[in-house]
């Protein structure tokens, strides 16, 4: 078991290093921010001087090693646009994305899980036929489209909710719904499969034979057993949610790290982009690791083979 954990952790570290390297080189190949920082009447000489002061005229390999060196000392560097430590900037924006992801998870689970359960329990009947496309519709909606229409309807026409920004709980509703709709179908599908698996088990037949209603069996046993694969799916979805948050945050001007990343790529604020990608990949890799380990705990075959 320990060997399995160590192996997977090692893999995770290599993966994260790979992410950092890919993003570093992609960013630096796309140019540097010097031209964006200076006034229009700066001369070539002045621009070259600033570029030298910022260190962008060093060979790429040197810049890469310097970056890794700073990372090893847990120094994420300074933003070129805001001239503040990247760690400070990230610390201020991460909570917003976490809030949005949590809200979206609630929406996705809140609608997806009951829908999946319903589809499993009423299999073959019209309810299942009707629910499946509805749930799938959530995954097919372009988030920027649903976002803009929601803002129009609830923000402008009806005036019920704030049109953008992050001022209080009300501002979270629309972005969370827009983002949650994406993963709704994954939860529904997972729940349906897990429940169908459980419903076919012997203990269900036995319980019903003893006279328990289907509802009681479901509530007391099926849901609990179906919870495990669903929770592991949820862990993996967190990574997807944070990725999907990028467009939702942009449309709703939600000040999370997704919006920060898009703005920073546009302004070639390298260190900020690298830090955001690092954060998201670490979260994603951690969740995959945890999900993997959860499976190992449940499935003895994996554990014993070490």
């Amino acid at each position, binding site marked *: 078991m320990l060997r399995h954990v160590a192996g997977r952790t090692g893999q995770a570290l*290599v993966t*994260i290093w790979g992410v950092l390297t890919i993003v570093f080189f992609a960013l630096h190949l796309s140019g540097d921010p010097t031209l964006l920082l200076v006034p229009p009447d700066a001369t070539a000489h002045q621009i070259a001087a600033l570029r030298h002061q910022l260190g962008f005229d060093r060979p790429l390999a040197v810049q890469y090693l310097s970056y890794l060196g700073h990372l090893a000392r847990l120094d994420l560097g300074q933003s070129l646009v805001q001239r503040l430590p990247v760690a400070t900037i990230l610390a201020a924006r991460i909570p917003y994305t976490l809030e949005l992801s949590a809200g979206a998870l609630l929406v996705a689970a809140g609608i997806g899980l009951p829908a999946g359960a319903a589809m499993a329990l009423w299999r073959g009947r019209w309810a299942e036929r009707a629910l499946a496309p509805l749930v799938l519709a959530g995954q097919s*909606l372009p988030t920027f489209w649903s976002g803009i229409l929601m803002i129009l309807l609830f923000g402008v*026409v009806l005036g019920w909710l704030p049109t953008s920004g992050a001022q209080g709980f009300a501002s979270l509703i629309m972005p969370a719904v827009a983002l949650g709709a994406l993963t709704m179908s994954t939860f529904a599908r997972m729940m349906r499969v897990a429940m169908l698996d459980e419903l076919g088990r012997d203990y269900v037949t036995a319980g019903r034979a003893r006279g328990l209603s289907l509802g009681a069996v479901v509530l007391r046993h099926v849901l609990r057993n179906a919870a495990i694969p669903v929770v592991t799916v949820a862990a993996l979805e967190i990574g997807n949610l944070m990725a999907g948050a990028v467009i939702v945050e942009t449309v709703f001007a939600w000040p999370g790290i997704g919006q920060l990343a898009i703005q920073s790529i546009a302004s070639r604020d390298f260190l900020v982009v690298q830090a955001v990608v690092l954060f998201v990949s670490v979260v994603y890799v951690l969740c995959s690791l945890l999900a993997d380990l959860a499976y190992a705990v449940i499935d003895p075959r994996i554990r014993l083979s070490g």
Partner: protein
Amino acid sequence: MRTIRRVPPGILALLALLGAYGAVALGAPWIAPHDPLHQSLLLRLRPPLYRAPSGTVFWLGTDDVGRDLLSRVIFGARASLAVAVLSVSVSLLVGTPLGLLAGWFRGWAAVAILRIVDSVLSIPAILLAVLTVAVLGPGFFDLILVLGLTRWPRYTRVVYGQTLQVATRPFIRAAELAGARPARILLRHVLPNIAGPLLVVATTEFGLMILFEAGLSFLGLGIQPPTPSWGSIMSDGRQYVDRAWWMTVFPGLCLFGLVLCVNLLGDRLRDDSR
């Protein structure tokens, strides 16, 4: 090879709808009532069913530089379908061989490939796409390259897993013992057997690529102006959404319809293959 059974009516209907989209995309120059690039600066932001003084009717209204929205939406189907088809093809062409190699030969090559796959998959997809556009630049062919280069790991992972499973089957071992070369085995025996799951992934990816193209065009990083794309029409129309809702609603409906159709198809295929 799986025996071809009768195609269920649900799937037929979906395929027909998909075919309709394809037909519109291919036949755009003949179906569209106007030139999608022709501007009439004095007829900006007119509502659907607007009749111009000259007598022409703009069935879906005009956009922010006076172009016919219906024609632009029709031509927009080309962008969505062309990008999706081509980028999925590129990803398949790159990802499948890598997955087969990793699954068949294992060893260091497989480890390297899988590490790269893991790393690419750990980067949030849209950020990776935006980043790659920053390097390659926007534009139709660069977009295909961007999407092709960022999505191949998804196929590699599935192909790898499936190849591992199939490789242990008796008839494969038999072929090996008979002296068949790996390339022959992979192409003639392994590939056909993993085609099912691969098709399911490709269908999901097809829907995703349509959404990605729209999303990137929406962010201004996809199809270049003045070529219409549903995403860029919606981006152009965003600042007029309260006064010219048609620029947002109609392209969005088309996009939603296409992606829903593709996703329903994928869902059915996944259910059938189980």
